[in-house]
């Protein structure tokens, strides 16, 4: 029997004024899989990620995240929706609305285990590589101020663990030599790797990578493929991937969803999608390597 999906997206619609960026998008992500989201430029791929990770409140539709350990999160509710007249009548509704406005959104998604990287790399450039990884570790962040100022044994232990974990991920992505460099001074390829390493420090269940191979050379891309597969195998991470490099998509993904003009064109196994005439047509204007 197939396990229930980790993520189920249904009828996801996103409108920006008159622009319909997503129109009733639906797909599923199986636990432990690599699911690729492909499509021509402007198809709405990044918008899907923005909705998934709580940066945009979708206009309609639902996104349900079922973690294997029973945690269930309605990702479409993370931003709490717009203010309504009724909120001002009931204090409870008002309170919740306010809570979501202040504390809702992306941070909640990350805490639920949906963590992303960005198409245009977003590192803390004036901080060192190690610091970038330490910021991401919330288990340590949650320590109180006082215990930190007094450097209590519990605090020191948490700090040592966080540093240890950061070194682990630096080793994993072969960045250990750069640990004390400023993140902004790294070469481009390493910045991409660092962003993924930083996301891994959040301990994601679903890792959403937005064009991780953009700007990488073929050997770096190959390395990246191995790393993604290793993450899935060794760390129980499910990966959702936006990518234009068809070689990479075909190599590592189990399931491919093709978006075009904000709609799902085809979804299925990579070899099926590759030979689908509708997909070829969508890409005809801008033929890709695939």
């Amino acid at each position, binding site marked *: 029997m197939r396990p229930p999906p980790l993520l189920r997206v249904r009828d996801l619609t996103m409108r920006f004024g008159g622009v319909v960026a997503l129109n009733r998008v639906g797909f599923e992500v199986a636990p432990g899989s690599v699911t690729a989201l492909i499509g021509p430029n402007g198809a709405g791929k990044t918008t899907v990620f923005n909705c998934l990770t709580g940066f945009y409140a979708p206009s309609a539709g639902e996104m349900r995240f079922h973690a294997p350990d029973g945690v269930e999160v309605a990702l479409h509710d993370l931003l709490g929706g717009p203010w309504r007249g009724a909120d001002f009548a009931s204090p409870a509704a008002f309170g919740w609305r306010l809570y979501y406005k202040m504390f809702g959104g*992306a941070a909640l998604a990350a805490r639920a285990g949906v963590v992303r990287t960005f198409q245009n790399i977003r590192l*803390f450039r004036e*901080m060192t590589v*190690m610091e970038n990884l330490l*910021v991401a570790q919330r288990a340590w962040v949650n320590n109180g101020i006082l215990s930190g100022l007094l450097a209590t044994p519990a605090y020191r232990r948490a700090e*040592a663990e966080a540093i*240890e974990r950061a*070194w682990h991920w630096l080793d994993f992505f072969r960045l250990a030599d750069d640990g004390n460099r400023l993140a902004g001074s790294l070469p481009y390829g390493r910045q991409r790797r660092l962003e993924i390493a930083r996301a891994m420090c959040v301990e994601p269940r679903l890792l959403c990578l937005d064009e991780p191979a953009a700007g990488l050379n073929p050997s770096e891309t190959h390395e990246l493929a191995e790393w993604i597969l290793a993450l899935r195998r060794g760390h129980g991470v499910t990966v959702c991937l936006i990518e234009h490099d068809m070689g990479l998509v075909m190599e590592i993904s189990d399931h491919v969803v093709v978006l075009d003009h904000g709609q799902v064109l085809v979804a299925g196994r990579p070899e099926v999608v590759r030979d689908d005439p509708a997909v070829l047509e969508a890409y005809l204007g801008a033929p890709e390597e695939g």
Partner: protein
Amino acid sequence: MMAIRDGGEPEGGGLTWATRLRDAALTGVIALLLFAPLTGVTLTGYALEGHWQRPLWLAAGVVVGRLLIGLFLEARRARPPVESAQASEKVGWIDRNRPFILGLALACALILPWFIGKYWLNVAILALIYVLLALGLNIVVGLAGLLDLGFVAFYAVGAYGYALGFKYLGLSFWLALPSAALLAGLCGILLGFPVLRMHGDYLAIVTLGFGEIVRLVLNNWMELTGGPNGVRAPFPSLFGLEFGRRAQPGHTTFHEFFQIPYSSETRDIFFYLLLLMVVAGMIFVVRRLRRMPLGRNWEALREDEIACRSLGIQPVTVKLSAFGLGAMTGGLGGVFFAASQGFVNPTSFTFMESAHILAMVILGGMGSTGGVIIAAVILTVLPEVLRDFAEYRGLAFGMAMVGMMIWRPRGLMGIRRARFHRSEVGR
């Protein structure tokens, strides 16, 4: 590291003589246009007098200066900025001897008051108060990257918190210290709420307005604050021992208790040492915070708020904590200021004061604790040294700023980042 910029052509000699001369000529013309009406004409009685040689001389000076700048400074500046990459690699002499230097500085600061006399002691006290303020603003602006132009408001809350607390509630200095600081911190958080979604310029304007509102309220709420007449703020006592010449009824004075001759300097030395302790404590707290999750979150927020959110960090709490802690430090400074002056009134809390503190943070290098402390001391002590040239203070100040931007755009000290070494324990 050299590989980063090896595409560039050999610069340095890149500026040709022709461009230099053209630049200089252009600057000269602009200078002439500016100086001619300013210095070329004087009004004597009702008659205009022309002094055409004056603007010409000034413009000639500007042309020569521009040429010199072109020759020396710009050639140097044209070199590739590898500084940022190197900043984290370099372990300088200062870094290696840091504990020693810190200890020496503290020892010097401790014995200082016995050597400098009453006048300079008061300058030193003022300098320490500014160090406190600059450390507080550094949290908000330097670390969290929230441009706050109304920081003086929290300074005022601290100062008036003590003065009014004493007037209406009989609050002693020692009680006022924590409570006025907490009050200021609370004000910081309250200000933080409405500006949570603002960045950069918008935030700057709102905080500027907030600073002015606080000052205007203090100035105009005559019944509560006494308006421009100000409020009295008494000097602290030490375990009930007073520092005046004669004790209030039922109290003892310090010099009587220890049976030493009365000197007004005793009280200033006491105040200085007390303030020094608070400043040292604050330096410790800030230095620790920078290596703690909270301090790192502040910096991460300054670097990229969206990335912070994607990692599960709530910008709201991070921002409010920066505002709150910064304001609290400002409030502490305010209490000390009120006690040292014996009196507060709204003229001490103008926008110029905010700008002054901000200049310390910028000169010191945003986020660098050591740099900010040095800048605060320099900017307080230097005007006193140059008292005879008081008219040129603004000029010197401006030139220092411009010089900084040319030679040390990252501040006096540059920022030292924590370094991590692999522990052997791991494996």
